[in-house]
């Protein structure tokens, strides 16, 4: 009884342009279009997720998808979303499941931070004329310099070398397609950076990109075995995820088919459940044990990352992780994306990564252990400015997930959990996966990161900074706009004008 009211979008078909080719029907995996027996095209608005596939593919440009002009009554308190969600739950009795990051209109601190530039006294640097260092190392920090018999400096351990401080964050094979993984792996290699397998194991075909791969170990330990651990350049222990802190993962049996089951190393059709906690980790000492056992299994050749969701006590938690022997701490903010998470968790649990990052960096400095670890920030880095601000707040590098997907052709329709991604990204249906052209996607990913690199160099040059080291944690380069003094304190920045 609420189907019409639930419809978020309406489809406008311009009959004067339509050539009746049937492309829209073929392109929409959500079954919005259907040819009736009498030849008329029936359109089910309520099934549309506004992924724009049909609009892009219509050869006559006859389609437009717009926000549904017909809306049930709503007001400042009972806004449309709240009403529609109640309809959904009243119909199904289900826990609401969403994908992509928290879309709610809450403060994005990045948007309230302004970056500095040099004027007069400290001249800016022209990146076109002078060398700019954007390379960073993640891993062993070489705090003590020791020399071997030959007089050469001996490294303390391994570190990852990133030509740009951007990596592709964990997205499992299963949540995204084979083609999407292939594109991320190839782009990472071309860019001199890294992509992350997520918790679904590593497809045999992608072992060759090992030098640019971070393999993940999550509570379900899917696909984790000796070769896998040794295949990547680093290992990431996933303790939590910004989109769903405190929640495990559940890939339903329908999706664990074919290569997915082979890669996860579970029987086809069986549920892949990642428990919320690692059942062998109840303390920092336990975490240390997992870090150590992974180091043993890889003969101390791989840096170990520990990824946690940004939550209330994050500074203390990060302090513990820094002492667990981990080399890199990954902070995932509450706007981080996901292939599927309960809506209420995604939209209400966790804290913004800007605040988490600043408070972790401050705490580690105060405790004198900042140089023991590297910090990576993720959870909605949308552009190079967010990246520059994150680095100035204390990050060594950033992770991008959603931005990478958008570069590959994602239209942010937020329906990855349906498994019917019309753009071939968050789906396992072969005919949909084939829509993602890997060569094209690699090119677009490389373009994106290269453009960000140039932009970052320009911003750095403007500040009179020619190396990332001089930007990292350099909060003097940031000023807050319209933030209260508590927020400024936590971010460790002054207000604009000060």
């Amino acid at each position, binding site marked *: 009884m609420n189907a019409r009211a639930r419809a978020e979008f309406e489809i406008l078909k311009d009959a004067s342009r339509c050539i009746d080719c049937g492309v829209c029907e073929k392109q929409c995996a959500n079954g919005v279009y259907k040819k009736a027996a009498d030849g008329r095209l029936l359109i089910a608005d309520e099934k549309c997720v506004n992924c724009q596939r049909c609009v892009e593919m219509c050869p006559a440009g006859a389609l437009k998808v717009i926000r549904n002009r017909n809306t049930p009554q709503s007001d400042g308190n009972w806004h449309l979303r709240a009403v529609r969600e109640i309809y959904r739950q009243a119909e199904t009795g289900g*826990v609401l*499941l969403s994908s992509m990051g928290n879309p709610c209109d809450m403060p994005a601190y990045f948007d309230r931070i302004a970056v500095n530039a040099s004027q007069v006294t400290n001249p800016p640097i022209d990146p076109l004329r002078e060398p700019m260092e954007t390379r960073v190392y993640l891993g062993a920090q070489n705090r003590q310099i020791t020399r071997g018999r030959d007089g050469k400096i001996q490294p303390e351990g391994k570190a990852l070398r990133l030509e740009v401080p951007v990596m592709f964050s964990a997205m499992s094979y299963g949540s995204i397609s084979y083609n999407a993984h292939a594109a991320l792996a190839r782009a990472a290699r071309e860019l001199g950076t890294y992509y992350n397998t997520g918790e679904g194991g590593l497809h045999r075909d992608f072992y060759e990109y090992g030098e640019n791969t971070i393999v993940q170990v999550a509570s379900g330990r899917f696909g984790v075995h000796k070769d896998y651990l040794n295949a990547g350049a680093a290992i990431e222990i996933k303790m939590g995820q910004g989109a769903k802190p405190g929640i495990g993962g559940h890939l339903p049996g329908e999706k664990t088919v074919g290569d997915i089951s082979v890669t996860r190393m*579970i029987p086809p059709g*069986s549920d892949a459940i990642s428990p919320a906690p690692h059942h062998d980790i109840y303390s920092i000492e336990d975490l240390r044990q997992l870090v150590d*056992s992974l180091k*043993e299994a890889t003969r101390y050749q791989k840096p170990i990352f520990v990824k946690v969701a940004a939550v209330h006590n994050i500074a203390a938690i990060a302090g513990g992780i820094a002492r667990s022997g981990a080399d890199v701490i990954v902070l995932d903010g509450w706007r981080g994306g996901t292939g599927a998470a309960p809506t209420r968790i995604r939209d209400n649990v966790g804290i913004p990564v800007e605040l988490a990052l600043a408070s972790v960096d401050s705490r580690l400095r105060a405790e004198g252990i900042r140089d023991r670890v590297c910090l990576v920030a993720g959870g909605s880095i949308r552009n190079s400015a967010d990246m520059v601000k994150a680095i100035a707040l204390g990050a060594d590098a950033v992770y991008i997930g959603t931005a990478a997907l958008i570069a590959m052709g994602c239209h942010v329709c937020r329906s990855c959990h349906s498994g019917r991604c019309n753009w071939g990204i968050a789906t396992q249906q072969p005919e949909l996966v084939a829509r993602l052209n890997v060569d094209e996607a690699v090119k677009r990913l490389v373009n994106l990161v290269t453009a960000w690199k140039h932009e970052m160099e320009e911003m750095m040059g403007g500040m009179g900074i020619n190396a990332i080291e001089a930007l990292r944690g350099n909060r003097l380069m940031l000023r807050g706009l319209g933030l209260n003094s508590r927020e400024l304190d936590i971010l460790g920045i002054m207000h604009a004008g000060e």
Partner: protein
Amino acid sequence: MEIYAKGMGYLQLNEAVRACTDNRISIRGCNGQRFIACASSGRQIDVHGVAGNGAGAYMESGVLNVYGNAQDALADTMNGGEVYVFGSCGDAAAYAMRGGEVFVRGDAGYRAGVHMKEYGEHVPALVIGGRAGCFLGEYLAGGIIAVLNLQNSAQALGEEAARGMHGGRIYVRGGINVPLPDCVTARTADKEDMCVLAGYLKKFCAAFGGDAKKLAAEEFTLITPANKASKRLYAGN
């Protein structure tokens, strides 16, 4: 080759084990050094003394004999091979184990066999001669756990066994007198079920003594996942 572990830290000991070219290594005077036989393949490692946390973690193949007790996280994410513990083992044994076999002569601590899973020809097995602590086989996704309770203690299992179990099988000698969750059913093991177990009992008895045939003839309770889907209903939003 023999290695005297006394006074060695685990880094040193494991480095010595890795550096050793023999396929059979005997560690004497072991006193809780961690991660012995971690990710090891194709070797026999005999530990005399107490094996520390994470013994046999990610083990690929070969044999690990512990002539004494093993501490926590025994056979964590083990992939293949055989582990024999002649004493008891600590908490979280066989966590997320995917293949191979673990035999513990004595008791197992809390959270044994959590989230074990099977895949293809890999069917992991955890056989516990004595009792198992609380939370045995939580989230069990595949493989076989057997609790033999050879000391005939009043309670073979601790509380909260088989929580969230959705695959695999748990055998318990005798009856079960702790409550089980809705997601599983328990029944007396029939002949066919016992055929599956017989091979493991044989190996257990061959290693630690006892009469496998007699054991197999006794009554076992079998816990398997209930058919009803334990999935929570989600509504796409």
